[in-house]
């Protein structure tokens, strides 16, 4: 009878996956993700959702590194994603660069912009930093819509379909592999980042930045590094959006997007990769679920079609409020509670 998880060596304690149950769950998840596109090959809708979820997970992990692990509140996610998407889109559509090269370039460009707008973080924290990043969002989006010669302004920027080894990635089925391979890479990289001294420095800054600096963590360096790494991943999510949708418009990167991603990581769980997965999945599937419910209810309530956008927006707000009041640690905490319950089940006392 086990009463908890114990480790008898440092190697075991530092291991990524520490229990058998974790390994089994991971294998099941992996097999599910492998089988998913084949099961729903004919059902484009599910594959589209799967791609959207994958891109959202990358963006959410990026934001979580900054907000959840380093404690720097950012409302500039939409702006940073715009930098990624437009860099990738412009390089491919106007300069004819291959999609993978423009994606890498977009990641670095976004990291650079992230560092630029991260400079105020040295003097600002909490609320003030949130407002500073909010203005980064406004400024970036203004540049995008007003610099028509390069970005196309308010017009949509059309990006050619990506190809890989001669295969055109224009279907959801083909793009699924790109998205989820990158999700896998980003996840492994992030989990490992927080086993290095960089990751520990980030967490130290979040917990008490002055104490961290007394212990020898160079605040300026590590805060900017957190902004760079976070923006790098956010830029990746933005670039993937550009290549996946083959079209880039500024409406996709408004302040609502910043709020959406912040909601993902708060509802999922701050400072947790699992939380980013859960939150991104939940917040991407929620509007789709509501749309389907609305369609199902159309027969009884014909008015529901015109009300649906407002129901979606209202549910979004309500879900955020309810989570913050009743489960501030998010879905990740609920998931942990379920695991704890079944660990000793059926003898939980």
């Amino acid at each position, binding site marked *: 009878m086990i009463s908890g998880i114990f480790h008898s060596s440092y190697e075991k304690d530092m291991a990524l996956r520490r229990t058998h149950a974790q390994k089994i769950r991971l294998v099941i998840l992996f097999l599910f993700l492998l089988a998913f596109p084949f099961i729903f090959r004919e059902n484009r809708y599910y594959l589209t959702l799967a791609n959207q979820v994958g891109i959202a997970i990358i963006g959410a992990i990026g934001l979580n590194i900054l*907000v959840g692990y380093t404690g720097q*509140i950012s409302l500039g996610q939409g702006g940073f994603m715009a930098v990624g998407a437009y860099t990738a889109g412009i390089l491919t559509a106007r300069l004819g660069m291959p999609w993978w090269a423009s994606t890498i370039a977009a990641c670095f460009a976004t990291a650079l912009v992230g560092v630029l707008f991260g400079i*105020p973080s040295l*003097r*600002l924290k*909490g*609320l*003030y930093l*949130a*407002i*500073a990043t*909010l*203005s*980064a969002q*406004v*400024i970036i989006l*203004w540049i995008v819509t*007003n610099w028509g010669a390069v970005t196309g302004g308010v017009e949509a920027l059309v990006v050619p379909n990506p190809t890989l080894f001669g295969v055109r990635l224009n279907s959801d089925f083909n793009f699924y592999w790109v998205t989820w391979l990158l999700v896998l890479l980003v996840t492994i990289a992030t989990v490992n980042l927080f086993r290095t001294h960089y990751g520990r420095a980030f967490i130290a800054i979040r917990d*008490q930045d*002055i*104490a961290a600096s007394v212990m020898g963590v160079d605040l300026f360096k590590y805060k900017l590094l957190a902004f760079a790494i976070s923006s790098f991943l956010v830029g990746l999510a933005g670039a993937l959006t550009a290549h996946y949708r083959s079209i880039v418009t500024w409406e996709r990167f408004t*302040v609502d997007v910043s*709020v959406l991603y*912040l*909601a993902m990581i*708060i509802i999922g769980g*701050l400072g947790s990769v699992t939380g980013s997965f859960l939150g991104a999945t939940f917040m991407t599937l929620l509007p789709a679920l509501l749309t389907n419910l609305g369609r199902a209810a159309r027969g009884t309530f014909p008015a529901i079609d015109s*009300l649906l*956008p*407002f*129901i*979606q*927006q*209202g549910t*979004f*707000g*309500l*879900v*955020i*409020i309810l989570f*913050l*009041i009743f489960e*501030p640690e998010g879905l990740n905490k609920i998931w942990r509670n379920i695991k704890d319950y079944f660990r000793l089940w059926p003898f939980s006392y």
Partner: protein
Amino acid sequence: MDLFIQLTLTGLTNGAILALAALGFVLIYKSSDVINFAQGEFLLIGAYVIYAMVVQFGLHWTLGMFLTMVVAVALGVVVERLVLRPMIGEPIISVIMVTIGLSSLLKAIVSAIWGNVPRAFPSFIPSEPVSILGATVGEDRLWSILIAILLLSIFTLFFRRSKEGIAMRAVADDQQAALSMGISVKKIFAWAWSIAAATAAIGGALVANIVGVSGELAGFGLRVFPVVILGGLDSIPGAIVGGIIIGLLESYTGGYIGQGLNQVLPFVVLIIILMLRPYGLFGQEIIERV
């Protein structure tokens, strides 16, 4: 020169309304350390409720205004009680996020009731053009400035002289000390939220009178940030001065340099202010100790 006066007057009107929106913002921050991202939605609700009272129910505008204030105060109390009180002691990001969620919910409710189509507002304030020093300006804009000045002076007096105002300042200064002096902090929070909602409602009615009612009004929620940061998050005179400076800045850049730039320049100013003087022109500088 005419253009200059014209732009100055426009800027002053916009500034006065911004100052009203910022005032509610500052009030809430001052007493409860909460940043209210739903301030723009309060403005929106004020505008739509007075629209419903005057146009849909056909009430006289004075009665309509009075009822709007009642609704706004009730809204403030309900929001404080249901949403903000459970957030006491939670980290700052939760508090920010809960008001963002609130703004989304309120906006959805307003759009579900009144739809997304902009509606003309029957001006209850005469809007005939008046010429001042060679520039023409709508009379309603002048009234807006006047009403804003009046309200801001009332609030300044309220905080200086009245018992409740002094209690609110005490809570802002130190909640524990205020509690031990017999001030009910909960009651003060409810006061702050209802006053904020009421000022926003007045602001909403003024804007509606000038430009009509539409979902766009919620945009004031974002435009308030440069104002409060410039003036100082916890300063009422700061909200007034900040509002006027930002209003003038928007108006001059819009008139002399070009439309479009006036939307972004306040945020550039915001970042510069944050880099140089994060506590703003009149805000209190907080020194952090470990």
